[in-house]
């Protein structure tokens, strides 16, 4: 009898895994179950071009036609309510069941909620529907308040300014992007937002947020009041682990998987924003990433390992963000570094992070357009090889990083 592989969650990781199963030659049945009614779509544009464009168009990852051609049974608008591990079948909301031989959980993450803050004027940003609600509130003469100076809040601030709206961004800590982004780069981003006309408020905790029919009010502990047409809350995301937890799988800041993306049940894998995994390049440190490329890489890896490849993940974390004309790219995790070296480029700069013993562990770059892209990509390869590049060479823009890469091969 032909095998049935089921994927729960039709986002970046789930959709990629479904296609990858076919690319790897799997000839059994593949079902991709997605809680959202849409075809799988990309989330990054929701806060960027998708927010600014005259007309909103979702960017699909796989069209209906491609899914059909690949022989992937896509079931959109269907929520999985439970996993019967002993009977190897899924229980759907609504009562039906679906048997599986192997299962991939790619359930993603959901925005962290501010307890007790509800209402028509409050919005989070994760889905097409969220983006459309926000779009409706942007434009000249409108005012949006953003809670949280992380990536979602900052990208939305830039997009809202591009649409002519007034923006007040409230960050509880003393600076922007305090998680994972070096202070110097965060300062550059802050300066750009100030120049762009965003009002920034730091270190003044929120006392209350009230949402009425036509507007909302944010009150801070200092007594400051911000009236806004809409309040975006961007205070991070939490992994969707309820299904896994109820099924008795181990959860550690996400569905816990090993370096092969296998959960504590050998027939169940997890990938993307929902899982935590050991990162080989950092001695097995367990991390959970919320990054588009990680979702793709893990979707691919999970597919191969569902087919018993037994392959260990070896990717270096990589993330980007677009704000105004600037693009930030980070390879590796900057907090692994003990020393830094800076490289100044014509239209950007890169901070290399090295461990105490001289290994390159991360690189954070910011620049106009794709000014830092090539060097960040090369740095990523050096990080993956655990290279110990010469610090003076890293700091010298005259030295091509490609040269360091070939030296690494000789060493």
């Amino acid at each position: 009898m032909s095998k049935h592989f089921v994927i729960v969650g039709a986002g970046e990781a789930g959709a990629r895994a479904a296609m990858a199963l076919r690319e790897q030659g799997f000839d059994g049945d593949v079902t991709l179950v997605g809680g959202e009614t849409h075809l799988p779509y990309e989330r990054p544009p929701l806060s960027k071009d998708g927010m600014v464009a005259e007309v909103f168009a979702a960017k699909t990852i796989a069209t209906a036609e491609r899914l059909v051609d690949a022989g992937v049974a896509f079931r959109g608008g269907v929520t999985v309510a439970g996993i019967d591990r002993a009977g190897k079948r899924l229980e759907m909301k609504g009562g039906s069941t679906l048997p599986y031989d192997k299962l991939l959980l790619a359930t993603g993450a959901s925005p962290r909620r501010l307890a007790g803050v509800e209402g028509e004027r409050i919005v989070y940003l994760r889905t097409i529907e969220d983006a459309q609600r926000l779009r409706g509130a942007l434009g000249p003469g409108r005012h949006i308040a953003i809670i949280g100076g992380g990536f979602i809040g900052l990208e939305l601030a830039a997009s809202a300014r591009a649409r002519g709206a007034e923006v007040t961004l409230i960050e509880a800590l003393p600076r922007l992007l305090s998680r994972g982004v070096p202070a110097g780069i965060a300062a550059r981003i802050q300066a750009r937002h100030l120049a762009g006309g965003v009002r920034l408020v730091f270190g003044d905790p929120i006392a209350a947020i009230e949402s009425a029919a036509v507007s909302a009010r944010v009150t801070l502990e200092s007594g400051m009041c911000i009236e806004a047409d809409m309040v975006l809350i961007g205070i991070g995301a939490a992994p969707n682990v309820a299904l896994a937890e109820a099924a008795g799988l181990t959860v550690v800041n996400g569905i816990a998987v090993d370096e092969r993306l296998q959960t504590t049940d050998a027939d169940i894998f997890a990938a993307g924003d929902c899982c935590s995994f050991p990162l080989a390049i950092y001695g097995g440190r367990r991390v959970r990433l919320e990054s588009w490329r990680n979702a793709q890489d893990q979707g691919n890896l999970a597919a191969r390992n569902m087919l018993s490849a037994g392959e260990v993940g070896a990717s270096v974390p990589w993330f980007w963000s677009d704000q105004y004309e600037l693009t930030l790219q980070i390879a590796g995790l900057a907090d692994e570094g003990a020393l830094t070296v800076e490289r100044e480029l014509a239209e950007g700069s890169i901070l290399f992070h090295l461990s105490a013993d001289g290994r390159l562990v991360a690189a954070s770059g910011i620049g106009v357009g794709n000014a830092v892209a090539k060097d960040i990509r090369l740095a990523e390869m050096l990080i993956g090889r655990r290279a110990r590049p010469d610090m003076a060479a890293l700091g010298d823009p005259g030295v091509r990083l490609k040269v360091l890469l070939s030296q690494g091969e000789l060493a």
Partner: protein
Amino acid sequence: MGEWIEACGSDDVEEEDVIRFDHAGRVFAIYRSPDDEYFATDGLCTHEHVSLADGLVMDEIIECPKHNGRFNYKTGEAKGAPVCVNLRTYRVKVEGGAVFVEV
């Protein structure tokens, strides 16, 4: 048959690298391979129309600077997600120290 247009000097592109060439409102990418051959493709990525000339060339692959979509620049073939549409390629010749593209 297209028209041969001078795109750049043969020394303007380093080995295993790429530069951008704009002509008549179109963007091209001109490559020099590690074994010193020249190639040309459309200059914008088929994912989000970013200039490929800011990307990294490795062997016969050009990697998009924006989300690392990969193409074989000799054939134009898209090598997998997020890019699924191939790049158009163009014939190239080198004459008198200049690179010509047939547009």
